[in-house]
Every structure is written in structure tokens, then in C-alpha cells.
């Protein structure tokens, strides 16, 4: 069985009288240690997929497995535990706690985990050893996003989920962040799933999943993986 697998997943949002079918019969799988990119137009359902996989949202139908566990059957408390121990999340808008320093933001996540990585070490890895005691407002967007990644990594999760991590960053910084993610995957063997709507980026992924109007239209292994530094967009 694959590390991650979606089986006939459907998601319907009930808002007032109208039902919005965000996902419909989604099937895909990702192997352990892969760098997977999900692409698709706006409103296609990418975020919905990631949220479900990240335990922040539930499915309306179908099953979701991660590392052999059926997370789609988890109750609320189990889901929290799942987020706590197994998932690392990186958002487009960083979502750092403003009142905590970079190091403390990492600690915030680390201190609730079973075997976290030392905060300082992780921050050093993301290249922020000098800025550890700065508050988010004192950091640039890219630096903040790196703190966010460090926060996700410090939890030592089974899987790293990133929803448009470069969306708010400029080209160069975005590239650096992606590089960091790719390195994490390569060097640490972490499974990383990244959402983007930039088709060009798919070149750097092991696996590319294309979403359109709530379903997977294409899922393929990338034959010629390009290093992120060599991609231009």
C-alpha cells in the first residue's frame, strides 16, 4: 500500500441551501519520501485535498490513508493527535504566532511532540541561526516562511504539507523556499506535498498530480526531475 492514498474521496460543502461539491471521486497515492506537487486552477480543490490529508477537514465520502492508517475514519480528538504527531503544515501566509520569537514559534510546535527536533538545530538548517530571537514582524516574508517550515519540520512529522508556500513571496525568495523543501525531502527522506498553480514548478517534483474541478485528471511520476535552481518561471 502506498504511503498516502485517496480512495474515491468526495467533499461536499453545505452552505445554506446550496451544496458545493468541492471534490468528487478523488483517487491518488503518493509513496514515502516522494516530493509531490499538486497543480490545478484556482478553485479546483487543491486546498481541500491538502486540508483533508492534513486532518484539518473531513471527507464526505471515500477513504484517506496515511502510512496504513485510515485517517478519514478518525474522530475529532484522533484528528488532533494526528495533526500533532504526524503532520507538518506550511501555509501561504506563514501563520506564525506574532508574539513569539522565531525560536519560540518553533518550540511551540516542538514541545507538544513525542520526538521533536531541537528548535535551534532546525532553525540553523533553514538558515536562520542568526535570527532565532527575532519576532516575526522583524523578519522578511521569506524568512518568516522559513520559520514556518522549520516549525513544521521540528515536529518531525511523517509528512510535510505545503499550501502555496511561495504564493506571497517574490521569485528569488520563493525559489529558496522551494529549494529548502526539496532538500528536506531529499536529505531527510520526508514525504513532501506542495500545492501550487505554477505549472513550471512541476518539473522539480517526483510526482505530479493535476486537479481540475474537484477531480484528479492526471497523476504521473516525473521522469526527468530538475533541480529547483534550474527552473525558471
Amino acid at each position: 500500500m502506498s504511503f498516502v492514498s485517496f480512495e474515491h474521496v468526495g467533499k461536499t460543502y453545505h452552505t445554506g441551501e446550496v451544496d458545493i461539491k468541492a471534490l468528487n471521486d478523488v483517487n491518488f497515492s503518493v509513496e514515502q519520501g516522494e516530493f509531490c506537487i499538486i497543480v490545478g486552477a484556482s478553485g479546483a480543490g487543491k486546498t481541500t485535498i491538502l486540508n483533508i490529508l492534513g486532518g484539518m477537514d473531513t471527507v464526505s465520502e471515500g477513504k484517506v490513508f496515511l502510512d496504513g492508517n485510515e485517517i478519514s475514519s478518525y474522530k475529532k480528538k484522533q484528528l488532533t493527535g494526528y495533526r500533532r504527531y504526524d503532520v507538518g503544515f506550511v501555509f501561504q501566509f506563514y501563520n506564525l504566532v506574532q508574539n513569539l520569537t522565531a525560536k519560540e514559534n518553533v518550540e511551540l510546535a516542538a514541545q507538544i511532540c513525542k520526538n521533536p527536533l531541537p528548535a535551534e538545530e532546525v532553525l540553523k538548517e533553514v538558515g536562520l541561526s542568526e535570527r532565532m530571537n527575532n519576532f516575526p514582524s522583524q523578519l522578511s516574508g521569506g524568512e518568516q516562511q522559513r520559520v514556518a517550515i522549520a516549525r513544521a519540520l521540528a515536529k518531525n512529522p511523517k509528512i510535510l504539507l505545503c499550501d502555496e508556500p511561495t504564493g506571497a513571496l517574490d521569485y528569488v525568495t520563493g525559489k529558496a523556499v522551494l529549494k529548502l523543501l526539496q532538500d528536506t525531502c531529499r536529505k531527510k527522506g520526508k514525504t513532501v506535498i506542495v500545492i501550487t498553480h505554477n505549472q513550471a514548478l512541476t518539473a522539480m517534483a517526483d510526482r505530479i498530480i493535476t486537479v481540475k474541478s474537484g477531480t484528479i485528471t492526471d497523476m504521473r511520476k516525473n521522469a526527468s526531475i530538475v533541480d529547483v535552481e534550474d527552473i525558471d518561471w
Partner: protein
Amino acid sequence: MSKRLLQSTLREIRNSLGRYIAIMAIIAIGVGFFAGLKNTQPDMLATIKHFYEKTNFHDYRLVSTIGFDKESVDAIAQLPECNAACGSIVLDALVTLEEGRGIVMKVHSLTETVDALELVAGRYPQNPNECVLDSYVFSDEMLGQTIVLAENNEEELLEKFVYDSFTVVGMVTSPVYIQYERGNTPLGRGVVDAYMLIPEDAFDMDYYTEIDVKLNQNFELYDDAYKNYVDEYEETYKSAALTLAQERTDRFNDEIREAKQEVEDARTQIEDAKAQIEEAKKQIEELEKTRAELEEAAAKLQPYLDMGYPLPPEQMAVFTALEQLPETPELPEIPELPEEAKEVDELEYFEEPQAYVLGRDTNIGYVCFESDSGIVDGIANVFPIFFFAVAALVCVTTMNRMVEEQRTQIGVLKALGYGDGAILFKYLFYAGSAALIGCVGGYCLGTWMFPKAIWYAYGMMYNAGPLVFVFSWKLAVISLVVAMLCSMGITFLSCRVQLTERAAMLMRPKAPKAGKRIFLEYIPFLWNHIGFLKKVSFRNIFRYKRRFFMMVLGISGCTALLIAGFGIKDSIAGVANMQYDRVAIYDMGITTKDEVENEFPLLQEMGYTRDDYFVFAENSMDLVTEEGSKSLYVATLTEDKFDQFYSLHTLKQEPIAFPKKGEAVVNCRMAEQFHLSVGDQVILRTDALQEIPVTISGINENFVYNYVYIAEETYVDTLGKAPQRKNIYLKAHEGEDVREVSASILESEDVATVSVNEETRERINTMMVSMNIIVYIVIACAAALAFVVLYNLTNINITERIREIATIKVLGFFQRETCAYVFRENLILAVIGAFVGLPLGKLLHAFIMANIRVDLITFAVYVKPISYIFAFLFTVVFAALVNFSMGGKLDRVNMTESLKSVD
């Protein structure tokens, strides 16, 4: 305003119903408390005014030392401004109730116009042997019962009544007695227990003891205009009363003079008659002598005549003379002076009469009501402002937060081309409608509930019918204006700031408030020992300064209110206990019928020694100071062992020396009221208007009634004689039941009254239960306020930090941990607030107590330590409760939605 915008506003209200209701509630509480308390005194005054006007309460009571002729009333009625004048008879009498109890009753004659009554139950008398009764003292069960004039009344008094018993047919309230006190009397134990009214015909009297006058105009109670008005006519009425009394006196004196003259005349006549009788007696004696002589002569001649001797004519003349001698006349009796003459002799001329005009300001109820209703006003002056301040604060923060939260939306609306006015309107409508509903609701509820509850509490002391509600435009307008300023005004200001920014700026997320190190971090010793999550809380607490002050102020306000509430209860409730535990340490006070020389035989018989009781004299006098006068008791002491029965000490518990000659010890309440201090000169004025000047030598702790203590020399020195020692303080033996002792003492003929301290303590404690109602209102309001403040602040806290909360939820914080993370700082703030509230509460309490005055009872201004603890715990528990009830809200924070957008 476009339809869509209105729709968006209404949806806004629906979506943030909690906040909307919170604004409504806080305004309602603020307005309700403010308007309710502020309206209470006017309502109470209106009630009494209404009652006075309905019953035509007198403006003047005319009394004279000799009473008034029944015809005098007409003369008074002719005086300027007189609306109505009624003569009435007022006597004090000892009566016996059916249940066997004997009490002192003020017996009034029924009047028709002035001082009319309010019938509470039954009917008015139709026969002269029926009466109506004091409805404050007696229950309706008295209807149909008989009240008997006690036999031990003075004969002279009993003669003034046609009947010796009266059937109760109705229960009434009289404007003369709106308060529970019924006045003093020389009878019984010196205090009138109740009043009753009987028809004028039931009195066997041909004069009135007083004339009650109602003038034409009505004024607001205690208004200066009224004082001027009655002052203006007082002299007219006084001189008229004096003239009438003078005429009456003159007439009586004339009659006496005439009677005395008659007696005098009769006496001379008798003397004359006596002289004549003497004369007659002499003549009779002569006559008898002549007769005897003639008879002797005739007796000598008779034999000759019998024998037929012719007698010479000169000898025959003896017989003719004897025959012609007149019969011995009956001596007229000496006329006796009639018995009455002696009485007439003893008659003394009436002294020059005195007449008085007694205004309403001599009526206990009228006077006391002014100060007693002031209690409420005292509270009303402090509390509501506090409430309003907190309410305003909450409103400000809430609305400010809301406008800030909706920056982006404002930007969008602007970008869409909505004018500033329309956008402004949306928020003004939101805040304004909430405030308006809250204001109207709070006003209605507050002005109904508070006066009603407080009037109920006053019902224990005052008796003047159901509460009259007055609507005050001024108050309503003030409430509305303040409510609107707090809500719409603030919203307007916050909106202005946002609206001046350009749309594009608005749509960009506002830079999040930067994190900052707090001072604690520079104390590594402390900082390093604080758990990581607690560091977050501490940083948050000090990061949001405005929220910090809001929260601390709001919560300290609640704690302060609670302390003040509990404290009022402590101060009131402790009074009786302190009085009888450390001041009046004797067991019972006894008044005897006759003066006690040294030993009171009864007590000696009962096995008490002279050491067990203390004999002294107690008189009711007026304490006259520069700032006014006050009727109180003067205890004249002769012995120095007084301290064993009554502890004379200062409020600081330092003993006070026994007063020396010319010195007096006054109780703290009087000292406070008239600003007296040791060394001041005051005057004690007796009922007979004699004055005793004294110097204050001490101010003692005493909570129940007002007392002045002087030495006997002081009394003797000024008044020439010693007061009658009729009062005894008794200490029962260890283990005796004081009630049983008092009962057996009361059985004695020589004892007038016995009052057991234990019973007084209970009575005061019961009376104070009524005051508790006010306290409970305060506590309930404080609780409500605390709840709304905490709810609002917590709500703001959560909405402000929604992203942070969503983030930590994503990170996998369990529900409990999330709550702890968010609420820890709220609780810390609550604890800080509660701490700040402690001294604040003490101040507030002292301030309120300074505004509260009740006659006869002095409150001890103190707050029990347990009350501080309670207030503190209550606040923290409230805070915890509110926070836990918000736990659900945290649970509902949607991670995906909260993190999706920037704001």
C-alpha cells in the same frame, strides 16, 4: 442606505449575535442601574408627597398650654392661606389589648379634612365606641377585637373618655405616622407603641388639644420654597393661636374670678347672717327672760285667781303681758358655705398661656424620611457612575475592535463606490440599535425594579402605601445620550479613522501588532523558570496594553462592586452584634415605676446583689449643637462602676474616662453628624426647655440609639435637683435564662418595662434583613456586570486572536490545551483585576457608607476579611465560568477558514 447594505448590516448582527447582545446587555445594565437607582429617591419622595396630598397632611399643628375652644377652629380657618383647619384631641393612654398585652397608645380624634386617613382594611367608625387602628403595628387580625383603656390610667384621663373600651373596625395609615416611631410619652416605658383614632364624640371633652392646619399651596417635599412658604405664615398663625389661647385663659380666669367673687360674697352674707342671728339670739334671751319673769309672777298670782280673788288691774296686766308676749321665734340656721366653695378657694388662676406652631419639621416621619431616603441617593450617586464607566469602556473596546476587524470590508465597500456616509451608517446602525434596545430595556427594567425592591425594603420602616413611579425626562435623556455616546459616538470615531484611509490601503492587511519583549524577560532568574506556554501568556498580557487596562479595570470594577455590596452587608449586619458583644454588656434594662433610692428590693429578693445591677436616670433630651439639634437619651450617672455594665470606649477601643462635672460623653454617630470633637461645647435641652451646657469629654462607640452620658452633679448643678433614678441595668447570673428573668421581673408591680438586649439584638438583626435586599441587588448587578464584561473581553480576545488559535489547532493542540493557551492569560488578567479591585472596593465601600444614614442605628464602616475573599473568589470564578463557557467558541474556530485569507 441601499437594501444590500442594510441586508449586510442585519446579517452582521445575526452573525455576531453574541457581541450584539453583549453591547445591548452592558448598556442595559449601565442604564438600568443608573436610571433605576437615580429614580428611586424621586419615586420615594413622590410616593410620600402623593400620600401627604391625598391625606391632606398638616402644614402646621397649633398647640397651646390650655387647648383651644371648639369655636376657635373657625377663627383659624379665616386666617390667610388657610385651606382647612381641623380641631383634634390627642391623648396618650395605657390600653390593654385582647391578647392581654398592655401598651401605650396615642389616641386621636378622627378628623375629616386635615390629616385624613388611608383606610387599609375594614371601615371607619360609625358609632362613638368604635375605633380605627395603626395598620403598621397591627395586622388585620385586630379587626373586631376590643381595646380597653387600662384601669391604671390616671382617673383624670379616664374621665376624658365617654367609653372605656373600643371595638376595632378598621386599619388605617395616618400621614402623621409614616415612619415606625410613634413618639415619646410620660406613660409606661416612655415610648408610644401605636396610635388609634376614635370619633370626637367618644371624648368627654369640650375643647381641642390642637388645631391642624393645611395651607393652600402644595410644594415638592423638602423644597426650600416650602420652607419659605410656611415660614412666611408661621407668625400669623402663632399670634392667632396665642390670642385664642389668651382669650380662653382670660375667660377661664374671669370665671374663676367670678366664682371666687361669688364665694366671697356668699361669705360676707353668711357673716352678716351670723351677726343677725347673734342679735336675734340676744333678743330671744331677753324675751325668754321676760317670759320667765312674767311666768314666775303669773304663777304666783294664779292661785289667787283660782281662788277667785279679784286682782288689781296692774297685777292682771302680768297676764295680759304674758299673753301678749310673742312666741319664741325659731332661730334661723347659720348658712353653711357650699362644699364647692372650698374647691373654688383652691382654684388657681391659669398662667399666661403659651401657644406653638409646630410645622412638618417636627414630625418624626417627615424629618427622618428626608435623611433615610438619602441613603438611596447616596448609593445612587456613586454606583451608577462606576457602572456607566465600565459599560462605556466595554462598548468602546467592542466597537473599536469590530471596526478594526472589518477594515477590509470597509475598503471593499469604499472601492465599490459606497460613500463614507453609507458605510458609517452601517456601523452606527449596528452599535446604535444595540444601544437603543439596551437603553430602553435597561431604563424600563431598572426604573421599575430598583425602586420597587428598595421601597419594599423601606416598607419595614415606612408605611405610606404603594410606590408611585415618576418618569423623569431628564434622566431618560441623560441615559439615552450617554448610551448613544458610548456606542455610536465611539463607533463614529473609530470609523472616521478607517474611512480616511484609502480603499487600497484598507484592503491590505493591517500589519500585525509586533511582538515585544516584556520586562520580565530581563529578569532571567524569573523568566527562565516560567514554563514556555506561560511565557506566551505573560507576553500577551503585556503586549496588548489597551486590552490589559480594559480587562483589569473592568474586572477590578466588578470586584470593587462585590466588595462594596458585601461590605454594606457586613457594616449593617455587624451593628447589633458589636453593640451587644462589646458595648452594652449588661443583660437587660429595667425601668421602674418609682424612684429607686439605692437598692431595688425586687432584685435583692431575687438574689441579686448591688453589684449585679446599676441604677441611673435616663431622660429624653435634645442635643443642641451649632449644626442642629437631635433628640436623644441622656443617661445621668452617679456610680463609677458603670463600666462593668456598659463599656465606654472610643471607636479605636480605647477606654473613655467617666464624665466629670460639666462634661459629657456623646456617641460617635452624633459626633460625626454634627462634627463634634472632644472639647466642644454643646447644650442638652430638656422637655421643659431647660438647658444644661456641657463640654464633650469623649466620643464613644455605640451603634444603637443615640446617647449622651453625664454625671449627676452636672444635672443637679444646672437644674437644681437630681433626676429621678428609674433605670436599672442588670447583669443576670451566669447560666440564667435572661428571658425568664425578665418575665419574672416584669410581673412586679414596681416595674414599668424590661428590655432584654438579646431580644433587641434579634429585632435589629431582623430589621436589617430588609437592608439586605439592597445589598443583594448590588451583588446581583455586580455579578451581571462582571459576566458581561468578562464575556465581552473574552470574546474580543478570541476574535482578535482567531488566526493564532487556528494555527495552534493546526499544530495539534488538544481542546484542553487550546483553552489553557487562550484562557490562561484571561485568568491571569482576572486575578490581577481582582487584586486591583480589593483596595478599590474598600474605597468604594467607605464612600457609600459615608452616604448612608439611618436614624437610631450607627453603621460600623468595615468590611470583613471573608468578604474580600468572597469578592475575589467570585470574580475569579466568574471569569473562569465565562471562559469555560467560551470553550465551545474555541472549538468552533474553523482552522481552514480562519487560515485561508489574510484577515
